């Protein structure tokens, strides 16, 4: 198993109030698969993804990614893990406004051991002609393409996407999903997406439905729908 989460628990304390965010999560995903975590606001999706991405730690349980127990890594090792293995795509792109498209990708390229060729990645996201543009000169969809290019240039083992289409219209969203699908196929990258949008789950190998910190349902898709045919 590429991702193997077992009995993962996480709670936050605010004053005297303790909020249990994750209550014993069990989750598995094979290498090269696309996984989708579906759930309403406050269900714990982002916390789960943060722990998987090495941004946060669980209180108990184990989180194994490609054989590494992420939950037990030291701060330095966790940085190395994020640096080498994880790619992030955010809902609001998080591009650096005063860097050009090319330079935004270089932010990651700069610290990668064996990165992909920047022009090849830009071609893959169909942004090669906009390499010298600044983010404010791009549409939302284009900015998300740059964000994906930035995430995959280091050739990560795991691509974590936090509502990648949450800020986009339908057609643009679909093109982004197609792009993620291509990345998955071309580079064999394992992708885990969190979304509100149930329609997206059709393109995933596995779907995890999360409610109040628990996986209430896990679906293994027998028939995977290509992104271009997804509608909502």
């Amino acid at each position, binding site marked *: 198993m590429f991702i193997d989460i077992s009995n993962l628990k996480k709670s936050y304390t605010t004053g005297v109030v303790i909020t249990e965010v994750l209550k014993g999560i069990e989750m598995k995903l094979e290498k090269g698969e696309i996984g989708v975590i579906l759930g309403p606001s406050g269900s714990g999706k*982002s916390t789960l993804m943060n722990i998987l*991405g090495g941004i946060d730690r669980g209180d108990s349980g184990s989180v194994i990614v490609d054989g590494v127990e992420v939950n037990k890594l030291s701060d330095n090792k966790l940085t190395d893990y*994020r640096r080498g293995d994880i790619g992030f795509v955010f809902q609001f792109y998080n591009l650096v406004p005063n860097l050009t498209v090319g*330079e935004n990708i*270089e*932010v990651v390229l700069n610290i990668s051991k064996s990165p992909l060729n920047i022009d090849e990645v830009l071609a893959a996201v169909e942004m090669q002609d906009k390499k010298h543009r600044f983010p404010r000169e791009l549409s939302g969809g284009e900015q998300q393409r740059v964000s994906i290019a930035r995430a995959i240039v280091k050739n990560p083992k795991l691509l974590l996407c936090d509502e990648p289409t949450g800020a986009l219209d339908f057609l643009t969203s679909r093109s982004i999903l197609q792009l993620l699908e291509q990345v998955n196929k071309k580079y064999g990258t394992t992708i885990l997406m969190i979304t509100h949008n149930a329609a997206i789950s059709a393109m995933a190998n596995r779907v995890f439905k999360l409610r109040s910190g628990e996986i209430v349902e896990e679906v293994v898709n027998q028939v995977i729908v290509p992104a271009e045919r997804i509608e909502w």
Partner: protein
Amino acid sequence: MVINKRIKRVLLENKAQYIGCIVLIILSSFVFTMMSQFADNFERLANEFQVGYIQEDATFTTDKSIDNLQELESTANAMIEEGKTFDYTLSEGKTLRIFSENDRVNIPAIIDGKELSGSGEILISPVFAKTHNYRIGDELNILDKTFTISGFTALPNYIYPLQSEEMMMPVPGFGIAVISKEDFAALNQGSNFYAVKFNDIDRNLRRQSAEFRELLKSRNIDILKWTNIEDNKRVNVVDAQVDILNLVSNGVPTGILLLAIILIGNVIGRMINRESAIIGALYALGYRRKELYRHYLTFPLMIAIIGGIIGTILGIFPVRFMVSFMFDAYIIPLTGIQYNPINIIIGLILPILFLVCGSYFVIRKELKHSPVDLMKGKKDKNKVNFLESGLKLEKLKFPTRFKIKGQLRSLSRLAFLLFGVAGATMLLLWGFTLKSGFDDMLTGGSVYNFEYEYKFDKLRYEPLPADSEPFQALLFLPENDDKRDFYVTGILPDSALITLVDESGTKLSTNQVIVTKPIANLLKLKEGDTVDIVSKLDGRIFSVEIDAIADTYEGRFIFMPIADFNEKFEMPEGSYVGVFSNVLLDIPENQSYSVVSLKDKLAAIEEVLGPTQSMMSVLAVIAFIIGMIVIYLVTSMIVEENKGTISLMKICGYRKKEINSLILNSSTIVVVIGYIIGVPLTLSALGVLVQSLENSVGMSLPPLKIDLPYILIGFIAVMLAYELSKLLCKKKVNAVSMSEALKAGAE
């Protein structure tokens, strides 16, 4: 307005930025109040002394005694008093210039003790007493007569007690003394001179002087030496000093205030930018633009008031200390300190005016947008400025590009950092430049190879011992310039005691007419030029052909062979007025003379070096504080601005060291450029001061320079401030959490 309740909270939330602003305002008001009150008191006390003790309008010596002074006074409409003086060496390195007591012109003021009341009493200058540990009641033995010190005195014509007018600073071994006319007569020593004070104070002094000299000439009295008070370096340095103090008291606080404006403009601009949605909402809720202006203007107003009050109060305290410290060099009675209320008000009002006006324009720029635009977040929030988009940096490595772009992101922030560092550099190097000049004076004396310089009141013809050389000297002025005088000096044609070299370093024979650099520059002379010069004594014009230019700034001289000098200026053949010597001369008692030793000159420089080094240390501390504030605030702003990027970098796996390098080190190049800009700016600012000295005193100084070791020390100090600021900001970078990027709103 209820929204004003947040002012205190905002100030507390952003303590570092606002404390930085307040410290800058405090420094500005402090320097302004201290320097302006100091200059005011200095000028007032000097003026009161000069008027109250009837400072001369001119002093002169004549070939014969003037018989009927009373008749001359009424004809010339002036007060004239005859004085007598001679130099007396108490012991090695202790020389007193003793004057007979005047009671009409140049009246001695009593600083401590009591005035002369009988025979055997003496007044001496307080600085001399302090240097040599003399107290009131002590006894001095002068020409075998014992004198008791009855008090300490100041003479209006010896405010800056230079031993000779060619010197730049008083020597510690030299002092002035006053004894009664009767005691002076009994000593049977010294030469006569006259001090004149014209009664018509409204008429031009030079015109009155010229008429008076004509009057004396018409009575067959030849003037041997004439010095108008405005040409008297023992007095006119006071005006130069006041000019410098005024220049500093205006220039430095204005510079600091401009820095504070850029800073507060930046801080408020950013705050409004950050709060644009809230402002839009307040508009929507019915708030008027005027009310929001008032709210945001309260921030600079409070800062200016707090800083202005603290700075002004702090600036008042050191005034008395500074005046009394200054009066160690300038002998003026300290009758009392007065605080000019106008300067106190300016010290308070100026920061308010500067800051509120500066901030008003920033606030107006930010608040001009419509409520809808403000609520949406302004459209130009992520606008890329012309420098960011215009500069072609593709060939540079990514970290370098990232750092440069980080700096170019905000031009006002960049300007603040650049001018802040340049300003701090100027303060720091100011002292170093002075120190470089003094170092040169102490080590660079390669022209004058003698130990003693004797000057006689009357021409001499006697042969001299070995290792001594005679010289002649007369004061001249350039045509159409009555301020910047210089000496034409006759020296031996094969002088061994004066060494002059040209620009290539080749030794020049003194059997020709040679000018020193200050005169060559002043008169725009080249080799082979002929120049007309005006005798200061009688206004006669002479033409002199220049054979060579000596590569030295030591003194304003035209040297020529002494025989040619005597012939050209119609002086008796074989006569001389002074001697350069490496041995002490045995001079008959009836010949009046003064002697200055090279050791005394060096001691004078070292004496001034002490206070200069203290001043340098104070300036260095202020410079360091300003540098720290500026760099820390800019670095904090960069961290604040880049929170999202820092967070993103952390998520992407950047290590702390890498993030610190990209974010905190981005200012390195600007700090270095700021320092480099600061070097010529220091020299230009000091150039203005030197120009003012040249104009008011007629003094000429060598071109300003800063020695390389001092440039390096200054650089290390600035970089140390930079590294400390970075160290403080590291905590801020480390505190940025990865959730910042996750929470980030729409791009």
